[in-house]
């Protein structure tokens, strides 16, 4: 994957398959500590296999398939950039995938177009409440799809209309970051 946002999209796809109705994506930059932290949490059915199996590229829970590359590729991207990927239970009730990496590492891939990535999820999943949190030392910027929906007319609360509004809000939230990720 050429962007970290595409790895995030891949993990979100896992959460949707696990029946999540809430997915929380957090991007935290610690410029002084040289750390970029990405978390994706959900309230889905949780991990029903050992963590080692989830990270094994030759293990998948999908019927008829033999490989499951998503999490192992994200783990490799984290380790290439001096970081790690951990999987834990989320306070939301499902799985929490946490990735840390060195912000200044030359092998760290760029965050990429996170607004386009997350707005595509919003557009195609009208029943999903996506929470996005951005922090770069200062106050945290939070964008929740359910809050954005309340600002819109009832007939704009799904599809392209809400996706565009969420995209704008995420771009504004990311504008407050250091610009290094």
């Amino acid at each position, binding site marked *: 994957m050429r962007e970290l946002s595409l790895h995030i*999209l*891949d993990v979100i*796809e896992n959460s949707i398959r696990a029946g999540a109705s809430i997915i929380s994506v957090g991007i935290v930059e610690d410029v002084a500590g040289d750390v970029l932290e990405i978390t994706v949490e959900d309230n889905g059915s949780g991990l029903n296999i050992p963590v080692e199996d989830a990270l094994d590229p030759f293990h998948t829970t999908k019927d*008829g398939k033999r490989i499951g590359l998503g999490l192992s590729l994200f783990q490799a991207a984290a380790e290439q950039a001096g970081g790690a990927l951990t999987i834990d239970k989320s306070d939301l009730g499902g799985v929490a995938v946490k990735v840390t990496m060195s912000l200044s590492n030359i092998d760290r891939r760029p965050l990429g177009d996170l607004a386009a*990535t997350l*707005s*595509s999820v919003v557009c195609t999943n*009208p029943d999903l409440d996506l929470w996005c949190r951005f922090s770069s030392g200062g106050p945290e910027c939070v964008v929740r799809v359910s809050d954005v929906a309340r600002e819109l007319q009832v007939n704009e609360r799904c*599809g*392209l209309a809400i996706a565009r509004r969420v995209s704008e809000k995420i771009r504004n939230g990311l504008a407050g970051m250091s610009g290094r990720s």
Partner: protein
Amino acid sequence: MANKIKNPQELAALKEKAKADLDLRMGPKEIQITVHMGTCGIAAGARDVMAALMDELTTAGAQNVTLHQSGCLGLCDREPMFTLVDKAGQEFRYGKLTKKKVHRIVQQHVVGGSPVADDLIQA
């Protein structure tokens, strides 16, 4: 200032109009497009295909389309791809998509009703 509702009939008419508007935007649409977003699809550019679809449908003013996403279909070498189901329920699988191909499919198939044979995945 909005017109006052003078009687129950006017209220019922307003309700019907609002319901029709909601159905138009949120109810089942004539065309369903599912972008396949498994790991293989995402790595091959499915996110960009989805973004291009959103832009092209907005530009074309196509209100009769619902977008969905799903996982890998098992045709990883044809990614990025999407499946279009028309109002008759017929499935069309488009593969190895680019922004240019998405533009052509929206104009020719979604708006014009004629499948783009060159970009269809052959069974």
